[in-house]
């Protein structure tokens, strides 16, 4: 049986989902920080880069700092600038 590359699924919202044409993207992932994940996404999906550069990340129900590790299988989301209210 072929060994599958581990991935992390990244949820997308609002203009980020619209730019990508998807509600989530799967990123090949062997571990690393939020900063590493941001760079991996920018390389794989250049179309989201303008908004990605203004976005922050969340893991589960918390905002995540750039140096925080992202485990394989983590529940990750990109949070573009918010506009509630």
């Amino acid at each position: 049986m072929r060994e599958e590359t581990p991935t992390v699924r990244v949820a997308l919202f609002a203009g980020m989902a619209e730019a990508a044409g998807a509600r989530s993207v799967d990123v090949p992932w062997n571990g690393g920080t939020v900063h590493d994940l941001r760079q991996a996404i920018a390389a794989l999906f250049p179309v989201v880069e303008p908004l990605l550069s203004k976005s922050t990340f969340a893991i589960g129900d918390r905002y995540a700092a750039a140096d925080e590790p992202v485990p394989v299988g983590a529940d990750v989301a990109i949070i573009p600038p918010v506009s509630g209210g």
Partner: protein
Amino acid sequence: MSRQPPEAPTIPEAVMLTRDPIDPNALLAAVADVTAGGNVLFVGTTRSLTDGATTTCLAYEAHEPLARAVLAGLVAEARDRFALVGCGVVHRLGTVAAGEASVAVAASAPHRKAAFAAGEWLMDRIKREVPIWKCEHRLDGSRAWVHGDMSPDALSRMAEDRNHP
């Protein structure tokens, strides 16, 4: 019987995301307390005119678990910061017609100044930090997600503070 814990009395708090019309009176009732002398209710409604373009409706979406957690943290922080006896926030999701309520904030305090200040503080923080987005649907058929710029200040607060509420 166990004794009453020596903590502060329970404070009514409400954090809700809803696809139904917001009932401001229900929120006000949820934060009511006999020790309150000032009860401030703020209701934000969708505006029909933005930068000269007519908006027919707004569609809101949220990262719901994160939005609930961030709102709960903000309500707890407001309670401490302004010594509130009641505090709550309701935000609408989905399609909201122009003129309808999209958000409501209520704060109750022994005196009015703290309640007014808490309401304003909460709305400022909600608009900067809670993962909710609006899409403007315009009369000419076009639509656009609204994304401003995140200030470095807000970004670092979101990463540092909200992780350790």
